[in-house]
């Protein structure tokens, strides 16, 4: 009886190897783009440009963190950009109504939590698919934003707060702006949660086989609810950052960002079917889209072409590992046939 696993371990066990991992590929591509930019494009490497390039994707990056967790758990939240808009509109409306900024922020965050609760409640209690629910709340939250602020734009936010978000103020000695710094910290925390805690494990289990996870005692509903709440919270907070960064609170802020967030996360190799992905990949995906856009714009590549490049990148990012795996497998099979 071959109980010992080692007797099974044929010497050829290394041949297949892990192949090219998707997230690694995106990471490599990111580094390549940075190197090309630094070497060949004037102005790309300047501190103010780098500060700008990263700060410019701060909100998308912030939302991408909880979105990664959601997608790993097999869910999706399309209402994030609308929640960003609602956060921004509320910030503006309350500021105009004379509230202190210190009270506005917690209130806006609470609204984010409430929005997340609604999403989560509809998904976990009513049992609707998250895609359907959040297409609905996408319209709802954006609509509420426009109810809150109408066609107004509120501008004059206090300088001290505005300074915190703009790309001209950086952490001394670096090109990191404060929103980006915050992102780095939160990304580290999220990475630990996803890859080194029981909660993270549960997310993968829920994402790949919800029923089996439930039968294993994983609190599927509670965890999903929590994820939607965190996503709502982050999105509302991104709304505050957005408002301060542009110094303009409007109901249509961040319109269409949901696709950008999802594209970045998917680009980083997080599987939309759930159960697979790394936070590193998602972060690399976000940064790649941001840096590439900056580099292409600097080189006067037309906006339309940039759109095409984004599309090609998405397709290539899923196709390349497939092709590589296919080649590796074919070679392996040939090796198996001819001893």
């Amino acid at each position, binding site marked *: 009886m071959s109980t010992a696993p080692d007797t099974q371990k044929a010497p050829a066990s290394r041949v297949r190897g892990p192949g090219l991992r998707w997230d690694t590929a995106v990471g490599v591509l990111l580094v390549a783009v940075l190197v090309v930019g630094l070497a060949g494009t004037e102005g790309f490497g300047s501190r103010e*440009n780098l500060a700008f390039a990263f700060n410019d994707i701060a909100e998308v990056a912030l939302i991408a963190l909880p979105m990664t967790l959601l997608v790993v758990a097999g869910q999706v939240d399309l209402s994030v950009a609308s929640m960003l808009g609602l956060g921004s509109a509320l910030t503006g409306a309350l500021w105009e109504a004379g509230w202190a900024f210190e009270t506005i922020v917690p209130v806006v965050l609470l609204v984010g939590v409430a929005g997340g609760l609604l999403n989560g409640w509809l998904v976990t209690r009513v049992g609707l698919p998250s895609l359907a629910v959040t297409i609905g709340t996408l319209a709802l939250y954006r609509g509420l934003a426009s109810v809150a602020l109408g066609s107004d734009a509120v501008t004059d936010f206090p300088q001290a707060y505005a300074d915190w978000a703009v790309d001209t103020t950086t952490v001394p000695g670096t090109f990191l702006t404060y929103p980006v710094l915050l992102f780095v910290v939160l990304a580290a925390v999220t990475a630990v949660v996803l890859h080194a805690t029981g909660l993270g494990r549960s997310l993968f289990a829920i994402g790949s086989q919800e029923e089996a996870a439930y039968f294993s005692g994983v609190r599927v509903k509670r965890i999903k609810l929590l994820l939607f709440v965190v996503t709502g919270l982050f999105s509302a907070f991104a709304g505050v950052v957005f408002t301060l960064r542009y110094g303009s609170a*409007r109901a249509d802020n961040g319109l269409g960002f949901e696709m950008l967030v999802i594209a970045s996360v998917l680009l980083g190799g997080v599987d939309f079917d759930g159960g697979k992905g790394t936070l590193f990949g998602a972060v690399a995906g976000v940064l790649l889209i941001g840096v590439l856009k900056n580099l292409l714009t*600097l080189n006067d590549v037309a906006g339309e072409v940039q759109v095409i490049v984004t599309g090609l990148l998405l397709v290539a990012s899923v196709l390349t590992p497939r092709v590589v795996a296919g080649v590796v497998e074919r070679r392996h099979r040939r090796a198996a046939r001819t001893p």
Partner: protein
Amino acid sequence: SGTTKDSAGESGAKATGSAKADPDAPLKKGLKLAFLPKQINNPYEKILDEAGIAAAKEYGGTGKEVGPSDANASSQVSYINTLIQQRQDAILIAANDPNAVCGPLKQAMKKDIKVVAYDSDTAKDCRQLFINQAGSEQIGRSLVQHLAEQIGHKGKIAILSATQNATNQNTWIEYMKEELKLPAYKDMELVKVAYGDDADQKSFQQTQGLLQAYPDLKGIISPTTVGIAAAARYLGDSSYKGKVVLNGLGTPNQMRAYVKNGTVEQFSLWNPEELGYLASYAAAALASGQITGAEGETFTAGELGEYTVGKDGEVILGEPTVFDAKNIDRFDF
């Protein structure tokens, strides 16, 4: 929106303050101009920018058009940053949001890049000049006046605008409401402002909804080229043709058919080519030091002749043209 809070803008002291204007300075050769429209695939903006780029060629400069493919406030910002890195001589911008673009534009002015707003203004301290197609007040009021005449100063009217946040639209609508408060319009009632988001299909559907919601509607003002064309098309095919008056801002090429078949009697617009042309020359004048953007300065805009900088750095192109069946065939844009 009239807030009176401490303005984030106050610290941004006018970058123009110190420089001195030299009215006789020649236009510099080889100026690099960048046009940043609201959105690159908007046909109207396209006309402006192409005219501006052509103008730049006239005085030996180069122009290019860059910009986002969606009309979002935030999307313009990354382009401004890039233009700063590229050290353009002047940035011409049709702002999607007067404030969101402010920070980077101030950065640009600090780096001695001239900033000219055209078509849709930014906050006043974030640019040196605003090239206005016509006085905003005049546009708003005259549209109401024209429509009132067409419907005999009596009945319900509605407005079909672009997006809820479009600065120029909202300013014009403000003036329309002002005008409607005058006693002459006591029998007219503005029942609704609808938003077609400058999307053809949405504008179309909004028109349709307006007519169902207000069956006794007498007139529609659509101060946007996309909106008026969509509204005209709906009216032309529906049973409301001839019963509801449509006026607003449109381009002759889009509207020709509807004027000819009687759906629309008249509409107005300035010449967008001239607007782009003027903006281009104004930017060149700024970059060459002929003007600084202070009130009262003058410069020559090629074939269009001499222009004077007005209050708040505003330069007005002129009166809008009113198009109708008689004159429309003389225009092609």
